[in-house]
């Protein structure tokens, strides 16, 4: 029996088994890493290429929104409005590209990138609105987050109706693949990681940047402290309010990159009826970062898992295995429940959801 570390009181047998497996992996980091890479390459080798590319593209909104959500929640502001941020950024990005001219360039920058920029900007504006409501007016974060989603859900089709006389926007030309010379020739991973659309590079870079920012910089430590023990951060002379503002705005940036990237790279058109074309991907993002216990790289891998399941289902259905979509759609949320109950590793920041009032007003 391996030596157990950390608190092991009252664990269920199931939890104990997983815990033991994890401990034994942690004790042999090299073996775990080699094993992980081997499994990864085996998956790449045995699965169809179109499934892999599709997984990567569909992971974009989930991964980036999840990383955004991590920053907000780590700082103590639970932002369940990221679904709304995905909606407004995807929608406004497409509108801007159509308005500037499909396929053209303005002031030296291709219109697609203007769309990206404005999409992120709109998302940040919504995040700012959310931050003001939560931090200045002490609104309940969950209700304010829901409001962000519901407003976006109504606003995008409404504006679309004004502009296009339809809840659905026009169709624009999407991002083309960007091929990195030499690197794209690497077997198995080359075509996947180095011959792909810009938003996929953004996702990969965003995950690394998010991880670095959160765990290797002073700002990251402030964010964590602001969520775990804002009083201590305040005592240390750092303005909790400012840190939280920055973190929520950052969640707007990441979600905006995800929404605009997905809209411009994959969708090319915005369908505004019902739950819109975003269709709950922001909520899957929340499930993803909970599953990953607020680790940006973990969130990236989690988004591969959920996006991959969806694409896998398309492949299986076409092969004659009729798996109900409705069931597949519940998997991310079921996984989170299972992980929260049986693995118990995910821990919400102590001060998440609470307003912090500095003493020295």
């Amino acid at each position, binding site marked *: 029996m391996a030596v157990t570390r950390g608190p092991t009181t009252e664990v269920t047998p199931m939890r104990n088994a997983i815990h033991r497996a994890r401990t034994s992996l942690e004790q042999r980091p090299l073996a775990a890493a080699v094993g992980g890479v081997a499994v990864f390459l085996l998956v790449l080798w045995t699965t*169809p*290429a*179109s*499934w892999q590319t*599709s997984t990567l*593209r*569909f992971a974009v909104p989930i991964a980036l929104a999840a990383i955004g959500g991590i920053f907000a929640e780590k700082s103590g502001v639970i932002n369940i409005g990221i679904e709304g941020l995905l909606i407004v950024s995807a929608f406004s990005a497409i509108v801007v590209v159509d308005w500037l001219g499909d396929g053209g360039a303005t002031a030296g920058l291709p219109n697609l990138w203007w769309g990206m920029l404005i999409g992120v900007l709109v998302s940040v504006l919504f995040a700012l609105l959310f931050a003001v*409501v939560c931090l*200045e*007016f*002490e609104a309940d974060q969950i209700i304010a987050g829901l409001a962000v989603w519901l407003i976006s859900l109504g606003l995008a089709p409404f504006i679309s*109706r004004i502009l*296009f*006389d*339809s*809840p*659905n926007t*026009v*169709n624009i030309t*999407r991002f083309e693949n960007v091929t990195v010379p030499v690197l794209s020739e690497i077997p198995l991973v080359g075509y996947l990681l180095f011959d792909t659309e810009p938003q996929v590079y953004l996702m990969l870079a965003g995950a690394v940047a998010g991880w670095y920012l959160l765990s290797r910089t002073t700002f990251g430590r402030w964010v964590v402290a602001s969520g775990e023990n804002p009083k201590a951060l305040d005592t240390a002379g750092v303005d909790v309010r400012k840190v939280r503002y920055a973190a929520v705005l950052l969640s707007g940036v990441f979600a905006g990159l995800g929404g605009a990237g*997905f809209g411009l790279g*994959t*969708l*090319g*058109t915005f*369908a505004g*009826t*019902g*739950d*819109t*074309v975003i*269709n709950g991907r922001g909520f899957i993002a929340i499930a993803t970062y909970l599953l990953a216990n607020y680790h940006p790289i973990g969130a990236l891998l989690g988004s591969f898992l959920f996006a991959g399941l*969806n*694409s896998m289902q*398309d*492949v299986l*259905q*076409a*092969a*004659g295995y*009729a798996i*109900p*979509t*409705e069931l*597949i*759609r519940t998997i991310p949320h079921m996984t989170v429940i299972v992980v929260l109950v049986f693995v118990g590793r995910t821990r919400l920041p102590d001060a998440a959801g609470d307003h912090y*009032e500095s003493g020295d*007003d």
Partner: protein
Amino acid sequence: MTRNRRQFLEGASAVGLAGIAGCVGGFGDGGSAEYRVGMVYATGGTGDDSFNDMAKQGLEKALEEFDLSYEKTEPGNEGEFPSAQRTFAESGDYDLINCIGYAQAEALRENAPEYPDQNFIIVDEVVDADNVRSYTFNEPEGSFQVGHLAGLLTDREFAAGAGETNPDASTVGFVGGTRTPLIESFEAGFRAGVEYANDDAEVVSSYVGDFNDTGRGQSTARSMYKNNDADIVFHAAGRTGVGVFQAAQDEGRFAIGVDDDQSLSNADFADVILASMVKRVDTAVYNAIESVVNGTFEGGKTKALGLEQDGVGAVYGDELGAEIPQEIKDALAESKQALIDGEIDVPSEL
């Protein structure tokens, strides 16, 4: 801080009230026209380039010809259908209430007996009540026609517009919205048509589970084009189908549209749309209004619109239609006649 918060709430509620007032204010003229109809559109609303817009076209044609005014509601989800129908019926001002889409059937079954003097129609579903006229379409027949077309084309080398067939494999695909009996009847007809054309051809099918998710439509169709070597994909998936067209363009293959002539309504994709399986919802709406105006409205009956009545059918793409070989068009015309004559039996279930 507390004062701040109150100010904010007051401000917010003032804005909210103004917004609500704006919504309530916006109803139409209510005018002096002789006949009034109410339209309850399917979720998705007008501007869907598809089902609702077809209904709207029928209404507009009637508006031109008769002394008519109308009011419309565009419910955002299925839960709003009962009250939308009741609002029209309750006023008693309408000579006819048009309920577009099968999803309204349940609500109408409850509402119709409550307002026995109110005339209703429902499109795409049968509601058994004396004051409701039901219009159904023979989707399997129309889908059989496009299936026949796909089955004939997949076997040969054919290139037109931005697409070409893959002569090595005889596979065609079907992408459905949600897995409901109605959408499955499209697939059943399509499969029968493909099989009629070509015994060896394979049909792969997939249901996205949504009529809005163009992204999933795209990935599903791409997987069919790439992994299954499908060269033609037929969709019955509403807006999701735009994703099918995108995938067809990306992969240089073909697609078949649905509901209206999508090579016109989605002209960006005319270079890959071989044909569309049209459902003449406009005909149904127009005929219903006409019957009310002429005093010949017959409630309690179902009008089935098939190939024979031009209620459904294959319409060749605006751009690619001219390039489809004549012998294939002849074969389709033949099978159409055989279907009308009842010589071919089309299943409506999988």
